[in-house]
C-alpha cells in the first residue's frame, strides 16, 4: 500500500463529493465547495454538542446517574460509531465517494487495491465525521462533569478506530456486491435480474448485521450466556478496552487492545483481498427474455393513467429490481425489520397469550421499515432519472403528469409491504376488526403522506448526475427528508396519540383528524413538488 496514493485518492473523492452538482444546475460556492468545510462543520458540531451537554443537560443529572451514563456512553461509543459509519454511509454515500469516481479512473491508473481501499475508507470517515463529532462532543460534556477525561480520550480514539473499521467493512460490502453483481454478466432472463437484486440486498444485510453489536450479541447469545457472549463478539472488543480501563484492569485492557488491532488488520486485509479479487466492475449487462410491446393501456390505463404516465410507472418498477443502486434502498428497510426479528424471541411473538404491548416494539420496527422504504423510494423518485431526465423534459409531458406517475409508483411499490404488514399485525395481535381497520387506515394514510412529502423534497434536491448513485438527492435533501419524515409521522399520529394515550378524544374524532391532517400534508406537498418540478423544467439542459 502506498499511503501517499491513498491520501491523494481520498482527497479527490472528497473534492468530488464536495463539488457535487446540486438541483437546478447550481454548484456549491465559497467554503461549501471545499472539502475542508466538512472539518469546520464537524468541529463546530463537536463544540456545540459538548457545550450543550456540559452547560445544560449534564448539570441536570445527579452524580450517580451522571457517572453511569458517562461510563456507559464511553464504553459503547466505539461499537456504535463502527455501525453508524457503516449504516450512515450505506444510506447516504454508498458508491457516491470512491466507487462512482473509481469506475472511470482507477482502471487505468497505477493504483493498488490497498491504496484504493484506504482512500475510499478515509473518504467514508470524512463523510461521517459530523455525526461522530456530535457523539464525541456529547460524551466529552459528560466526562468533563464527572472528571473522566481519560476514559473519554480512550473512547474517542477507539471511536475513530470504529469509524475506520466500519468504513473498511463497507469496502467489503462494495467489493462483494460488485463480485455478486458481476457473476450475472451475460446471463439471461428476468429470474437472473431478480436473483441479482436479492443477492445484492443479502450481501448488504449480512455484512451490516455482522458489524452490528446488538445483533451479534443476540446471535452469540443463542449459544452462550450474554456475559460470556460479550467476549466473543469481535465488534465489541474496542468497547471492552474502555470497559476494562474504567474497571482498572490493565491486563484486560491490553488483551482487548491487541484483539482490536488484530480485528482491524483482519478486516483491512479482507477488504483489500476482496477488492483485489474483483477490481472495479464493468457495468453488468443482462439479456432479457423478449418482451412484448404493450398493446393496450393495461391495468394502469384502467386505473386512469394515460399512456405516458403508465409508461413511466412501468419503467420505475423495472428500475427498482434492475439497478444496483436500488439494493441499498431495499436493504435498509430489510435490515430494520430483521433487527426487530432478531431482538424478539419467536416464542413470545407467536404466543397468543402475550399482550399486544409486548409485541408492540416488534410491530413498530416493522412499520418503521416500511415507512423507511417509502421514504427512500419517494425521495429518489425524480433524481433516479439521472441525465435521462432530459428525455422527460423534451417529451410532451406536463409536470403534473410526471408527479402523478412518480407518486403512483411509490404507492405501488409500498402496497405489497403494507398489505403484508396488516396481515401480520392481524395474525400476531388477534386484534378486533376495528383495531385492524384503524391500523390499515392510518398506515395507508401515512404511506401516501410520506410519499407526497418526500417526493416534494426529492424534487427540490434532486441530483441528475451520471454514474451510480445511492440517494439521488443532494445531501441537504437527505437530511431534510429525514426531518420532514419525522414531522409528518408526528403530525399524522398525534390525534391518535391523544386518543390512545391521553384519552382526550374519541376514536372517530381522532381518526378523522389524522386523515384531515394527512390530506392537508399531501395537498401542500404536491403543490410544492409541482412548483419545484416546473422550476426544474426551466433549468439548463
Amino acid at each position, binding site marked *: 500500500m502506498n499511503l501517499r496514493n491513498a491520501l491523494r485518492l481520498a482527497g479527490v473523492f472528497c473534492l468530488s463529493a464536495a463539488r457535487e452538482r446540486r438541483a437546478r444546475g447550481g454548484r456549491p460556492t465559497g467554503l461549501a465547495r471545499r472539502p475542508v468545510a466538512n472539518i469546520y462543520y464537524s468541529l463546530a458540531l463537536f463544540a456545540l454538542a459538548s457545550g450543550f451537554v456540559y452547560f445544560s443537560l449534564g448539570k441536570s443529572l445527579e452524580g450517580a446517574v451522571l457517572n453511569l451514563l458517562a461510563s456507559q456512553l464511553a464504553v459503547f461509543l466505539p461499537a456504535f460509531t463502527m455501525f453508524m459509519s457503516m449504516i450512515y454511509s450505506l444510506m447516504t454515500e454508498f458508491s457516491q465517494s470512491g466507487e462512482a469516481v473509481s469506475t472511470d479512473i482507477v482502471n487505468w491508473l497505477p493504483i493498488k487495491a490497498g491504496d484504493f481501499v484506504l482512500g475510499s475508507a478515509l473518504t467514508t470517515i470524512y463523510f461521517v465525521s459530523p455525526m461522530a463529532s456530535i457523539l464525541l462532543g456529547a460524551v466529552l460534556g459528560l466526562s468533563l462533569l464527572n472528571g473522566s477525561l481519560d476514559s473519554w480520550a480512550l473512547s474517542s480514539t477507539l471511536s475513530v478506530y470504529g469509524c475506520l473499521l466500519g468504513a473498511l467493512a463497507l469496502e467489503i460490502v462494495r467489493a462483494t456486491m460488485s463480485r455478486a453483481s458481476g457473476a450475472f454478466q451475460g446471463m439471461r432472463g428476468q429470474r437472473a435480474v431478480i436473483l441479482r437484486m436479492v443477492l445484492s440486498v443479502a450481501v448488504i444485510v449480512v455484512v451490516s448485521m455482522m458489524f452490528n453489536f446488538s445483533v451479534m450479541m443476540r446471535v452469540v447469545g443463542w449459544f452462550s450466556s450474554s456475559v460470556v457472549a460479550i467476549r466473543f463478539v469481535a465488534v465489541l472488543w474496542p468497547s471492552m478496552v474502555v470497559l476494562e480501563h474504567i474497571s482498572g484492569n490493565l491486563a484486560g485492557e491490553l488483551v482487548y487492545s491487541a484483539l482490536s488491532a488484530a480485528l482491524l488488520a483482519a478486516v483491512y486485509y479482507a477488504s483489500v483481498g476482496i477488492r483485489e479479487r474483483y477490481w472495479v466492475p464493468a457495468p*453488468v*449487462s*443482462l439479456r432479457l427474455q423478449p418482451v412484448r410491446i404493450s*398493446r393496450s393501456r393495461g391495468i394502469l390505463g384502467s386505473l386512469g393513467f394515460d*399512456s405516458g404516465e403508465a409508461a413511466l410507472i412501468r419503467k420505475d418498477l423495472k428500475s427498482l429490481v434492475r439497478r444496483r443502486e436500488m439494493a441499498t434502498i431495499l436493504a435498509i428497510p430489510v435490515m430494520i425489520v430483521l433487527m426487530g426479528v432478531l431482538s424478539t424471541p419467536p416464542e413470545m411473538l407467536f404466543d397468543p397469550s402475550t399482550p399486544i404491548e409486548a409485541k408492540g416494539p416488534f410491530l413498530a420496527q416493522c412499520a418503521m421499515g416500511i415507512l423507511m422504504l417509502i421514504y427512500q423510494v419517494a425521495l429518489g423518485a425524480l433524481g433516479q432519472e439521472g441525465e435521462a431526465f*432530459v*428525455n422527460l423534459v*423534451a417529451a410532451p409531458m406536463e409536470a403534473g403528469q410526471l408527479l402523478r406517475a412518480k407518486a403512483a409508483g411509490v404507492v405501488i411499490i409500498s402496497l405489497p409491504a403494507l398489505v403484508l404488514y396488516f396481515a401480520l399485525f392481524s395474525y400476531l395481535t388477534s386484534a378486533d376488526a376495528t383495531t385492524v381497520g384503524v391500523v390499515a387506515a392510518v398506515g395507508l394514510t401515512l404511506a401516501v403522506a410520506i410519499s407526497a412529502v418526500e417526493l416534494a423534497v426529492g424534487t427540490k434536491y434532486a441530483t441528475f448526475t451520471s454514474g451510480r448513485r445511492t440517494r439521488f438527492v443532494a445531501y441537504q435533501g437527505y437530511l431534510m427528508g429525514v426531518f420532514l419524515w419525522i414531522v409528518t409521522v408526528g403530525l399524522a399520529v398525534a390525534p391518535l396519540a391523544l386518543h390512545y394515550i391521553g384519552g382526550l378524544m374519541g376514536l372517530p374524532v381522532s381518526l378523522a383528524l389524522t386523515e384531515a391532517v394527512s390530506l392537508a400534508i399531501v395537498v401542500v406537498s404536491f403543490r410544492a413538488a409541482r412548483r419545484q418540478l416546473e422550476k426544474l423544467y426551466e433549468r*439548463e439542459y
Partner: protein
Amino acid sequence: MRGEPAVSLKGVSRRFGEIRAVMNLDIDIERGAIHGLLGPNGSGKSTAMKMVLGLLRPDSGKISVYGIDPQTDPLAAKRIIGYVPESPRLYEYLTGLEYLDFIADVYGVDLAVKEERIYEFLEAFGLEGRENKMINGYSHGMKQKVALIGAMLHRPRLLILDEPLGGLDPKSARIVKDLLQRLSGEGVTTLFSTHIMEIADALCDRISVLYLGEKIGEGSPAELRERAGRPGSTLEEVFLMLTGANDVSDIVDALME
C-alpha cells in the same frame, strides 16, 4: 420558398453569465428542408437547438416552430419535435426494446402501429436481435441509433439532431442520411449540427455558420463557396476561412516543438 417557414428565429440571444452563447440570431428554415448548423465547439449550435425545442429560454428574440411559440406552448411544440441530444441519455437498465416502447408511450404513439414501427426501425438500423439486451451493454453507436429511433417514432414534423452521426458506423450513417432525405421529401424539417463537412455538404439544403454565438454566414453549400470567393474549394476550407482558422500550421508547429 415552400410557404411559411417551419422554424423561425428572430433576433434570438442567450447568455450564460458572462458568456454570450447566442447573439441576435436570425434563421428561417423552410418546411421539409434539411438545415445544418456548422461551427466550432462553443459556437452556440447546441444552445440554439435547445431554444428551438424549448429546453432553454432565450433572453430576447422570438422563436416559432410551425407557428407555435415553444415558450408559451411547450407541449404543443414538443409533440411535433423529435430531439436527439449530442450524447444520448438513455435509461441504461432498460433493454433497447423497452426504451423504445417507453418513448412511444410517452409521445402517445398509437398502440395499433407502435410495434410495427419500432421493429421497422430496429431492422433498418441493424439492431434486430439485440433489442432485448440491456442498454448498458450497448456500444456508443448502438445507443445513438436507439436515441435516433426514439426521436423518429412519433413521426415528428421537425427533427432536431445534435451531432446525429457521431459514433455511427458507415452503413448506419448512410441510413440516417437517406432517411433524412426521404423524410424531407415527406415534408419533415430537419435542423442538425455536425462537424463533418462532407455530410453537411451532401445533405443540407442550407447551412448557417455560427462562430462565437453569431451567425457569420448562411446559404446553400454552393452559395457559401461562392460568397467565400472559393467556388472550387471544399466546404471545410470555406468553414475554416469563415471562422478564421484556416492556418493551423503555427499551432501544429508549436505542439511539435
